[in-house]
């Protein structure tokens, strides 16, 4: 609560600035001079038809895909342009993938243990011992994602939904400053959706979030700010109400079928 009050008092500090990001796959332009910015501790949703470049944008932010042109600045002056994935991750950008990607032959607890924020160099890892503090952190996380009873089970044996939760738990253990979530509620039941939603609100206390999502009800419920993407460019940005009033957005979503052909 305290943090939210602060926000109203001071001007928002920026956590991410992207300028003219260009990504090409062969002849196909996935991101066409896309510019984007967001404030600290904000939940920002990315929506748009398939092939609009949403996932590509997340890929660029976490270092999976390299830009052909443009610049991205994280926090005050950390340029991610030429950084490797692990460097970006250590700096504080966490990524949850669309398909759950966990380590199936480690137990649930070990998955969290590996993901946890810590010195991740070879020699620190060789010496690493489970401290009491770390143990508590993992226990707490297991409670949050509802897998405390399954801590010693190999993660490969979890159900689809549980794997999604585990991966969310893993990125949370990284204690990121900026968290990228790709369709976090895909394939979840309504109850699980709600639980994820309240988790997002909780996460917002500590970090900023960019969420790619197709479920408009979910977006309406949890978004503070929404960016609509179309064919690799920014179509519109604003609150959900503003977006819904926007003619261009309506055209892309409802009007032309042409947009989907590019998917």
């Amino acid at each position, binding site marked *: 609560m305290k943090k939210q009050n602060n926000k109203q008092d001071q001007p928002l500090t920026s956590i991410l600035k992207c300028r003219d990001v260009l990504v090409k*796959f*062969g002849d196909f332009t*996935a991101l066409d001079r896309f510019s984007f910015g967001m404030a600290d501790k904000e939940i920002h949703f990315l929506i748009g038809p398939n092939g609009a470049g949403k996932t*590509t944008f997340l890929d660029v932010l976490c270092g*999976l895909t390299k830009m052909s042109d443009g610049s991205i600045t994280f926090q005050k002056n950390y340029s991610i342009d030429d950084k490797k994935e692990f460097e970006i991750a250590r700096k504080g950008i966490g990524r949850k*993938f669309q398909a759950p*990607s966990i380590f199936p032959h480690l137990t649930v607890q070990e998955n969290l243990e590996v993901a946890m924020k810590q010195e991740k160099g070879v020699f620190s890892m060789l010496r690493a011992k489970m401290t009491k503090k770390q143990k508590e952190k993992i226990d707490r996380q297991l409670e949050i994602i509802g897998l405390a009873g399954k801590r010693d089970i190999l993660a490969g044996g979890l159900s689809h939904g549980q794997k999604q939760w585990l991966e969310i738990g893993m990125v949370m253990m990284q204690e990121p400053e900026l968290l990228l979530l790709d369709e976090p509620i895909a394939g979840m039941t309504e109850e699980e959706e709600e639980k994820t939603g309240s988790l997002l609100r909780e996460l917002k206390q500590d970090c900023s979030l960019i969420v790619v999502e197709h479920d408009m009800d979910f977006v309406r419920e949890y978004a503070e700010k929404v960016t609509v993407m179309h064919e690799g460019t920014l179509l519109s940005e604003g609150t959900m109400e503003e977006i819904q009033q926007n003619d261009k957005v309506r055209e892309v979503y409802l009007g032309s079928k042409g947009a989907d052909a590019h998917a």
Partner: protein
Amino acid sequence: MEGIISQLFNGISLGSILLLIALGLAITFGLMNVINMAHGELIMIGAYATYVVQSLFIDYLPESMFNWYFILAVPAAFLTAALIGWLLEWTVIRHLYGRPLDSLLATFGAGLILQQAARSIFGAPNVGVQSPALLSGAVEIFSISFPKSRIFIILLVTACVLFMFYYFYKTSNGRRIRAVMQNRDMASSVGISTRQVDSTTFALGAGFAGIAGMALTLIGPIGPTLGTAYIIDAFMVVVVGGVGMLLGTVIAALGIGVFNTGFEYFTNASMGRVLLFAVIILFLQWRPNGLFNLSTRKLD
């Protein structure tokens, strides 16, 4: 000048042999992601098939016909190797799709069995295949001599490459193969029998190994371990060329051939190998996925 030209010719000649071997690998490894270590043994089978055809000609046909044995040897080598390849796919490899490293080890085992079989049938010592008179001797151009057998191999390889391009990019069978290799589930849901495509594609790759074996009989004697001498170089060709692109394989094979003979010319055979290995490692710093590679948006 003459030295350079004949070195270049030697390089292209070696490159064309590597290419002929790598063509089959480009199919099985490049398209199907199977590392077939028994590819060398399929080459050996093609070579022995040629040997058998020749023996039949010597035993049953008048001597005047002998020159033409190698015309028949090409399809014979292709079909024998393709058949064994098909069997190999059916018994071993179909269990191993998506497990490339495991396919390497299992096919290595299959290779051991095939080698031993050749030893049991034809004996361990090498046997010689006599070149037809048509292909012995050399052509002299500006006082540089080009062995006819080498020229024949270069022509044979050119024909094979053209056939492959035509088959994969212009025929419906080829399109079907590419469809399955690019998106197995999608291809299967539009009604392509992926099982059948897998086995025929693999047999095709094996057949090319057979032709390579036929070509090797023109160069020297053949034995049960004939293929092992070439197999790793041929894999290097595919690594350097990049997966899934025929053009890359062609360029890589010729490049490795020319570099190899060049290095050997300036140093010696073993130092040449060391240098070539170093160059390939350095090349991979620049192009980790080989000369050609489609860039896609995928986690894995």
